[in-house]
């Protein structure tokens, strides 16, 4: 019969139940981590079990120790009373409960230990390797003991055979002071970092020193503890320096709040990296909430983590496709969306601004109000919308196969100042071309074959037409994945613009109070130089961007571009490649 439950909490790492047997005797059974049971044990085969537990941990099994104690009825009454008082306390309930538990769970008799093989999920090792190849630093934060966690890390290939393990554990800190340990470690890693290239391909070069750091919760709390002499900031800096040069970090014996603490530490370190936390249990919730992206694995341990996360996945292996394929695609799409929006609006408004210099700064608009309103709504909205839903600059299987492509977009590469300034520059250049191209064409002369003159609305319509075509064709040049939908929206938008203009200017609309656009578009298209001008201005606007793309692809290709070229080559020239390799190998002999 179950009398009481002293529930589990991650600080004391054990739980107990009080039961009454059929014979009427009262027992207290306690199970928990070995570090929290052994100190409270007064008899039992302590050494034997301790060594057994160590061996199990090294093999990677999760260990628990079980102990018990017999309670006489008076003791039970006392225990009941304590618990009752603590449970209904109005203030400091947690503390009172902890004290009560502390008092009750002592003088236990060791029963034995259990070991559970917590198997790694399928393809976990594959996923971690892929993430490391992609340039993502992988840290493992666990509440397990050091030996178990290290064994698990070897199993999932976080630490490889050549990885040199550095320890920042309580054991070492007891031997030397924290200061010395930190200094020694930093010297070890920094010695080799000078000879390393900036981003070493982990796993591909065997002669580089591969460091792995192991730190446990107690050491971390020592580092994080605020000190009076202000040296804690130095320790944190040192610690982060060491971490930066290690390919993998294992933090064991972490309490849930410490997991969040370490995520916070990294978030606010010098480079402000983007952090992602993935976990499946309730003790991962704080770190999931703290990180930039929190992912919960819907697992056997319940849905607490999934409920608190930004994204929930059923298995750990899905993280690979999520980051390397979906994440990569979304980043490409959204960066193009943002840059393109600024670009097309610079192209739109800058000629208006330039016109002010020629209209006496009276805010006369260059384009008709219908064009002003519909530019961003109808003429240029659908192409970029469908681009940002459908674009795949390289194929899905290529991205899965080659995680190093992820490095091309690391550190927010496509939304940096440099890229943004390029797009803005391009927008300004295009706007200057549109406006001054039309200006010099219109200046002081007629362009029709019957000598009649155009007015300001024709001027604006010419600029607008060139602009709509240019920005749409620019997007067409940037699109790498042309489905029928892309064709439909891009050519359809242009067609819609032409049809709209013809209709808008083709009829005297009764609801309009002005008729200034009547026949303007059609008349503009009926003169030869307008067509020639449109063709010329579109070409001049797109030329620099094409040139830049081609030159950069030729002279400084990124890994993504090389993959695209290779795929194109392979799909076209398969037999030639084989022949070449045979001939060249023949030549070398």
């Amino acid at each position: 019969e179950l009398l009481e439950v002293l529930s589990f909490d991650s600080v004391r790492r054990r739980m107990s139940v009080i039961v009454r047997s059929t014979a009427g005797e009262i027992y207290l059974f306690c199970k928990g981590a070995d570090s929290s049971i052994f100190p409270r044990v007064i008899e039992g085969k302590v050494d034997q079990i301790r060594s057994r537990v160590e061996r199990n941990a090294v093999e990677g099994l999760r260990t628990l120790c079980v102990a018990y104690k017999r309670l006489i009825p008076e003791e039970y009454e006392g225990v009941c009373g304590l618990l009752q008082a603590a449970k209904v306390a109005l203030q400091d309930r947690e503390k009172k409960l902890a004290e009560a538990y502390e008092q009750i769970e002592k003088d236990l008799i060791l029963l034995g230990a259990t070991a559970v093989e917590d198997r790694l999920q399928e393809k976990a090792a594959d996923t971690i390797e892929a993430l490391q190849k992609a340039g993502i630093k992988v840290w493992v934060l666990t509440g397990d003991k050091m030996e178990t966690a290290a064994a698990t890390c070897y199993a999932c290939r976080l630490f490889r055979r050549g990885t040199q393990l550095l320890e920042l554990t309580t054991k070492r800190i007891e031997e030397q002071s924290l200061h010395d340990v930190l200094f020694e470690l930093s010297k070890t890693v920094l010695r080799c970092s000078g000879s390393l290239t900036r981003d070493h391909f982990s796993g591909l070069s065997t002669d580089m020193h591969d460091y792995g750091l192991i730190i446990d919760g107690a050491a971390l709390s020592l580092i994080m503890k605020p000190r009076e002499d202000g040296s804690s900031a130095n320790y944190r800096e040192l610690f982060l320096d060491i971490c930066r040069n290690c390919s993998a970090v294992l933090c064991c014996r972490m309490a849930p709040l410490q997991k969040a603490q370490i995520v916070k530490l990294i978030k606010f370190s010098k480079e402000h990296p983007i952090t992602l936390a993935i976990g499946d249990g309730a003790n991962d919730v704080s770190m999931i909430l703290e990180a930039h992206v929190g992912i919960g694995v819907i697992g056997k341990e319940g849905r607490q983590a999934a409920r608190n996360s930004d994204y929930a996945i059923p298995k750990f292996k899905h993280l690979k496709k999520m980051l390397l394929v979906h994440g990569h695609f979304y980043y490409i799409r959204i960066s193009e969306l943002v840059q393109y929006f600024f670009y097309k609006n610079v192209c739109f408004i800058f000629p208006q601004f330039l016109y002010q210099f020629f209209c006496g700064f009276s805010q006369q608009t260059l384009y008709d109000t219908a064009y002003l309103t519909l530019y961003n709504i109808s003429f240029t909205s659908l192409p970029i919308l469908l681009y940002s839903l459908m674009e795949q600059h390289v194929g899905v299987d290529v991205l899965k196969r080659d995680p190093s492509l992820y490095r091309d977009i690391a550190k927010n590469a496509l939304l940096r100042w440099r890229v943004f300034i390029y797009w803005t520059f391009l927008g300004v250049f295009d706007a200057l071309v549109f406006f001054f191209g039309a200006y010099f064409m219109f200046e002081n002369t007629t362009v029709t074959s019957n000598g009649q003159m155009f007015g300001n609305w024709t001027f604006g319509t010419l600029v607008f037409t060139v602009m709509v075509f240019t920005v749409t064709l620019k997007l067409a040049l940037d699109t790498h994945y042309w489905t029928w939908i892309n064709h439909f929206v891009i050519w359809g938008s242009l067609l819609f613009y032409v049809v709209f203009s013809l209709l808008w200017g083709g009829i005297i609309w009764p609801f309009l109070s002005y008729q200034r656009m009547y026949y303007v578009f059609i008349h503009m298209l009926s003169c030869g130089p307008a067509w020639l001008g449109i063709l010329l201005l579109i070409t001049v606007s797109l030329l620099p961007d094409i040139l830049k793309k081609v030159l950069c692809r030729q002279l400084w290709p990124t890994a993504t571009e090389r993959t695209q070229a290779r795929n194109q080559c392979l799909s076209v020239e398969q037999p030639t490649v084989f022949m070449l390799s045979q001939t060249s190998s023949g030549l070398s002999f």
Partner: protein
Amino acid sequence: MAMNCNPKDEVDGGPPCAPGGAAKTRRPDNTAFKQQRLPAWQPILTAGTVLPTFFIVGLIFIPIGIGIFVTSNNIREIEIDYTGTEPSSPCNKCLSPNVTPCVCTINFTLEKAFEGNVFMYYGLSNFYQNHRRYVKSRDDSQLNGDPSALHNPSKECEPYRRNEDLPIAPCGAIANSMFNDTLELFLVSNESDPTPKPIRLQRKGIAWWTDKHVKFRNPPGEGTLEEKFKGTTKPVNWPNPVYMLDSEEDNNGFINEDLIVWMRTAALPTFRKLYRLIERTDDLHPTLPAGQYFLNITYNYPVHSFDGRKRMILSTISWMGGKNPFLGIAYITVGSISFLLGVVLLVINHKYRNSSNTADTMAF
């Protein structure tokens, strides 16, 4: 990685499985559209694909540019400024005239004959027809012949909307500032009779066909034009009301072509507008033979108060319009730049391909 948590923590938030039947799955369909596996064309912009384009662009643009440039060079044009601000100009006396209307004459010489149709323009400088408040100061429904708008012009025309309690027709600042100089052209023949021969100037055909026949209409009704415009008054700065702009009925009232041309506001502060056509006589004689001409100006339109300038332009027209070397030069420039870039890219491509080939062979 937690120690064995209490299972009572787990509260199932998801939908419970229906006993026996299949639970409603929220999995998206495995179609090509929803899983983004649509068949697609995947082009990449390599040097190989772009090089031919550069060369083609160069090869197409350069001849076009040359053609346009040559055409533009063959167009004859002459500009006569007659503002009269310089004391030596014949029109200086019209700046502050003692007698109105002031008439002045400017002599000029045509070096070469003008063949084909010749177009006569008047040009203004520093005149901002594209000022915002100027551009909106008109009533298109009144000009379209709408009787209600005729007697009740739109508020946009303020302050040129009503005068002495009568609505102004046509209302607005654009109509009010209509150009009213009269220009006449005379040829001084070198032969025996020294009397100057007037050149015949066509008044019709200077405005857009759609403007004259659709957009601008006289108010409906029976009777003369004067009766149709009863109850309105002329714009403040006009000498005559709108129904006295021309003697011919189909060029009078709102459909007067000079008015229509003026109402089409120009894009830039220096502009020209079509004034008259000089039709070609026959193919044997040039329309305007080389020689001495003089231009008779009835100077009504004052521009010196805002530092404006006035001029008369005579020009022939080709299929590409008036004399404008810009398009030709631009095409030639862009064509040659494109060709040059093509050559540069070819060189780079060649060198890069060579170097990558050597790298491949060395790797083996």
